[in-house]
């Protein structure tokens, strides 16, 4: 059997040059037999894995796309667009009505109170029955 040309030396720990050489080879920027053998080894390892089922990839892509659509902020329907302006206006009108109603309800009471105060004031101007 043909001996596999294998890249790299036999040193115990990697030096910067070894890592740089490996990186360059795998990026396709390295040159020479060592770089080629790194690429060959990577190809040999990668080809061992069976390819991904195209149906699975398509389904996964669709699942992710569906998740994205669900998480996207929803646009209001054009026909209901008038609601966007009507709702705040309705709220403001409601507040205004509530204030007017409160004034109208409170007004007779105030009048009553003023009448009571007026009566009291008139009463206090009379001579006291008690010794001063």
């Amino acid at each position, binding site marked *: 059997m043909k001996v596999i040309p*294998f890249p790299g030396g036999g040193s115990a720990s990697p030096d910067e040059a070894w890592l740089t050489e490996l990186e360059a080879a795998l990026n396709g920027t390295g040159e020479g037999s060592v770089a080629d053998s790194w690429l060959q080894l990577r190809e040999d*390892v*990668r080809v061992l894995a069976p390819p991904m089922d195209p149906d699975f990839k398509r389904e*996964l892509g669709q699942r*992710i796309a569906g998740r994205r659509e669900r998480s996207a902020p929803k646009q209001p329907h054009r026909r209901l667009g008038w609601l966007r302006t009507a709702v705040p206006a309705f709220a403001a009108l409601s507040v205004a009505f509530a204030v007017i109603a409160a004034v109208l309800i409170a007004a007779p009471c105030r009048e009553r109170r003023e009448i009571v105060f007026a009566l009291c004031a008139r009463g206090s101007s009379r001579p006291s029955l008690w010794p001063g």
Partner: protein
Amino acid sequence: MSLTDHSGSQASLATERAKLDDEAFDRLFRESAAGVHGYAISLLGNSSAAEDVTALAFERLYRARARLNHRRGTPRAWLFAIARNAALDELRRRRRQPQSELPEEFSGDQDSEAVLEHIARRATVRDALSALPLREREVVLLKFHGQLSNSELAKALGVSESNAGTRLHRALTRLREACLQAERQEEIA
């Protein structure tokens, strides 16, 4: 947003803070789905489990895309870190060694000497890879299937860059020795 590694000095602050937007995610999916699947099936030896890991990795990354901190790794490094955790969880859950479904033979014309050489070589690599301890096999698979840079590999493994370099060197040295040993055994046989 770039999917490649950035050194701290070169990457602008804006780039570092950039989130993984939909377009970048789609690109990452197109470019890396096969790599994640290849890594997972090589580690787990089971296509169904590999599909589960691949789906989980992309879905988790998608959910976490707004929280990604580019300073702490590229999206690709995050993706493979998630895939790695999921694959290791799967191995732990099953409490068994990976069962290889990797192809034993190549189809097609096997008559030519070159093809036979390729078959022999890949069989040797397959046996050598299987003989590696899990800890070293996953480094090789991450590097080759993920096409990760050394800094991305470090992020995916959750170790320092120098530690990742040491592990990679050790794993590839062992792979080399295992290949040579397998060759010697075949020669003797």
